[in-house]
């Protein structure tokens, strides 16, 4: 018996021993992981909200002050006074979450940028984590399973329409074929 087999055998023995005397704490462990995920996504959501809010309002406002123009809070993407700020805003707008919501390629980019302020302002709705796929489908978005998120959404899409992939990017890439 070589070393590989001996190690496998040892691991198997220990695993079997554990299975025979394993504590009934599976539910507790699952709950712990769920709570951890909720806390983690809350943190990610808060960071994303702060970043998006600063990009949407702070960036153009600061840029406007620096350039000597009027200080007005404009929605992200609609002002083009500051090139550097607009670039960062454009990067934020190209997130998958927005593409998922507006899957039509004929929609001009400005339409998606118009939805950015709504996503930023609605802090309680959980849309602040749009840029992060994990943050978007997390427990922070729903306190219980009654409000399913994108995983469930993916499953539904997959079940209802075979031609649509569960990946939003693939769905997006399928659209031009209709043209």
């Amino acid at each position, binding site marked *: 018996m070589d070393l590989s087999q001996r*190690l496998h055998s*040892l691991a*198997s*023995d220990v695993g079997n021993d*554990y299975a025979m005397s*394993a504590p009934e704490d599976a539910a507790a462990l699952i709950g712990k992981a769920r709570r*951890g995920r909720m806390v983690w996504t809350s943190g990610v959501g808060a960071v994303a909200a702060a970043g998006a809010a600063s990009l949407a309002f702070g960036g153009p406002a600061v840029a406007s002050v620096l350039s000597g123009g009027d200080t007005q809070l404009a929605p992200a993407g609609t002002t083009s006074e500051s090139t550097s700020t607009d670039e960062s805003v454009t990067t934020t707008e190209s997130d998958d979450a927005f593409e998922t919501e507006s899957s039509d390629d004929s929609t001009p980019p400005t339409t998606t940028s118009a939805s950015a302020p709504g996503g930023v302002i609605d802090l309680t709705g959980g849309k602040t984590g749009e840029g992060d796929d*994990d943050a978007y489908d997390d427990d922070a978005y729903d306190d219980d399973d009654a409000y399913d998120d994108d*995983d469930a959404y993916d499953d539904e899409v997959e079940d209802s329409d075979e031609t649509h992939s569960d990946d939003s990017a693939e769905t997006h890439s399928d659209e031009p074929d209709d043209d």
Partner: protein
Amino acid sequence: MRTWAKVMETVVRERRPALVGYAYLMTGSRVEAEDLVQDAIVRTFARGRAKNSVVQAEAYIKRAIANEAINRARHRMVVEQRKPLVATPYSVPGHESMVSARADLEAALEVLSPRERAVTVLKYVDDLTIASIAAILKLSDGTVKRYLANAAVKLREQLGDDAVNLTERNTVPVILTESRP
């Protein structure tokens, strides 16, 4: 129920014993192996990783176990260094463990350093390549080879020369048959 939640439940309810066995190879302690697996599962799923399939999740958890086992062992070594040198061992192996069939292997694994142990498990249990092991442990290929070689020497000392053959996976058994008359 979301996909990641289904995967998590499957891993916790069905794959946990196997993961404990795997972690035991890394740690040599059943209690620490259980704790390591629990910690790895929570970390993996709490951070939204490896949620698409059980296989993917298990692979990710194994990587987490390997890295965390090394970290804990190194931390333990630092703590041990600061203890009085006259400290007595916290456990004495019982008679039953000495006569069990796996005692010699467990004793041999105890001789290895944490990284030597990890690369040995990744090599001989997970059957990973040198490059894969290096990527998981964030080491260079040469370092992994050195750890493997050192581990092989130590294991041979403990288990005998035939126990470890580094080239056993690269060789093809040749069966000599009678030549034609």
